């Protein structure tokens, strides 16, 4: 992890809209370093994503590690936004694709991100993706690009 935003207040500054607390600050610090940092149990190895919890829901251990995932996964589903807030100059033309991605680390370990490719929407579900990062935003956001279309 870089030292670019090691201080909590820097993380607060980059994500003014998000309720950041001690249980999720590592995730946002990770975004600033272009890493998807999720929670993993130090005892049983179980990963969890949103909501990021201070204890392991599988074994109740409080030994929660903040660990970067590979960023690779498979699209479970998606929507294409034809309208939305004008963040980062977005025009929603073509529509903005948002996807639910099942990460390869664990079944149903899911994160949300935009899809940067313009592809036939029918090809999205089941396609393999890897994380890339948004540009132009105040803070990096999780995006994915297709690396292998569903066969």
């Amino acid at each position, binding site marked *: 992890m870089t030292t670019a935003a090691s201080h909590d207040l820097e993380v607060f500054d980059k994500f003014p809209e*998000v*309720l950041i607390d001690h249980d999720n600050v590592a995730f946002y610090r990770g975004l600033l370093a272009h890493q998807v940092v999720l929670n993993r149990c130090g005892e049983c190895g179980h990963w969890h994503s949103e909501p990021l919890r201070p204890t392991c829901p599988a074994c109740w251990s409080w030994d929660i590690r903040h660990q970067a995932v590979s960023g690779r996964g498979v699209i479970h589903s998606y929507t294409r936004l*034809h309208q939305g807030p004008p963040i980062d100059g977005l025009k929603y033309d073509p529509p903005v694709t948002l996807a639910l991605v099942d990460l390869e680390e664990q079944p149903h370990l899911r994160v949300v991100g935009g899809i940067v490719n313009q592809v036939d929407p029918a090809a999205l579900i089941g396609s393999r993706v890897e994380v890339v990062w948004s540009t132009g935003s105040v803070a990096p956001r999780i995006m994915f690009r297709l690396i292998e279309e569903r066969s």
Partner: protein
Amino acid sequence: MSNNPAKDQLAFVGIGRAGYHRDNNSTDSLAALTLRACQNAILDAGLKPEDIDGVCGSQVNSQYVELGLGLSHVTWFSNPEILIGNQIVAARNAIWSGAASTVLIYHSVFRLPFQSKSIAADPFRIRASKLEERNDYRGFFGVGHVEPEPYGIFGSTPYASWAIRYLHESGGSREDLALVAMNAHTNALDNPDAIHRFPLSVDDYMNARMVREPFCVYDMDVVVDGADAFVLTTAERAADLAHKPVLLHSATLGRGALSNDTASIDLRHTSQRVAADQARNSSDVWTDDFDVLAIYDGFSIIPILWLENLGFCPPGEGLRWLADCWDTQSQRLSLKGRTLNPHGGSLTEGATQGSGHVREAIVQLRGTAGARQVPDASSALVATGGIFYNSQVSILRTN
């Protein structure tokens, strides 16, 4: 059969409504709508303020309502989260436990700038939205670990995403999905309170403005300013009051594993499943018995999954079943002879997160639904809430 000791022991005796409009010149605040609906419900029941000893509502604080109505002897109060099934279950439990005898239930909605362009510049609504920001509406489970659109999936977008997944798994199309909205629009023609009172053809639907795929404007409920209120008391007390008592037969909530909407394992593991199973196990009447089907339709995908989880059709076959149930002549769904949402539902009457569905069930069972009255209606299924974390079932009937 699970333990349901309060079965048929309580009754809805009053209903009240205010607003349900999109009047941009209205000066009705959220609180004003709430108080007016509450007054109407108490008056409808033929009761007086001193008869109300329990207060249970959604966003508007119960103490405010007590002060607004001049209540002076309240022995139980609560503000459960939306949706209305939470208030119904809480009130049921309070009366059954003896904490209160006659409970006022309310839910209200007020359009905020992020919901409607036409009121986005209203300074009062901008101010009202500050309360929402403090509550961080993006994180319904309370901690706000949800990114804002267009980077995150919350609010509407999970329903759109799961609707895409549903269409993918079932092989259905948007033409099939259109039947939910078309049915809602036909039924709304008989509802003077509905916002959308015009017929909708499949062409209208397919040509409509797309918002979040697969949802066009007609797949999403119509935001309004409005409030519904209800009075719930014991069946014994209800027998002496003005209206035919509408008995609360069963009321259930449900929440399953990974119930937040992005994380849900799949469409077979939902909170709807839990609430529906609990309802089936606590009710003497079930799918073939109901005269009235009031099933929440905040997004068109929601009632399809409800019908599957309630057992009207096998899992994954809801859309196909609806196509089989479509009556071309009447332009309505006929689910074994019953329509879906006689009042048109949230898609046309207005988006009140299910309180309109509860009201419709009560009006139908009283026999006062006017042009849309279901003949001899004596039992109603009310399924409120969405798919993932706020699923609820109420079953109402008359003697």
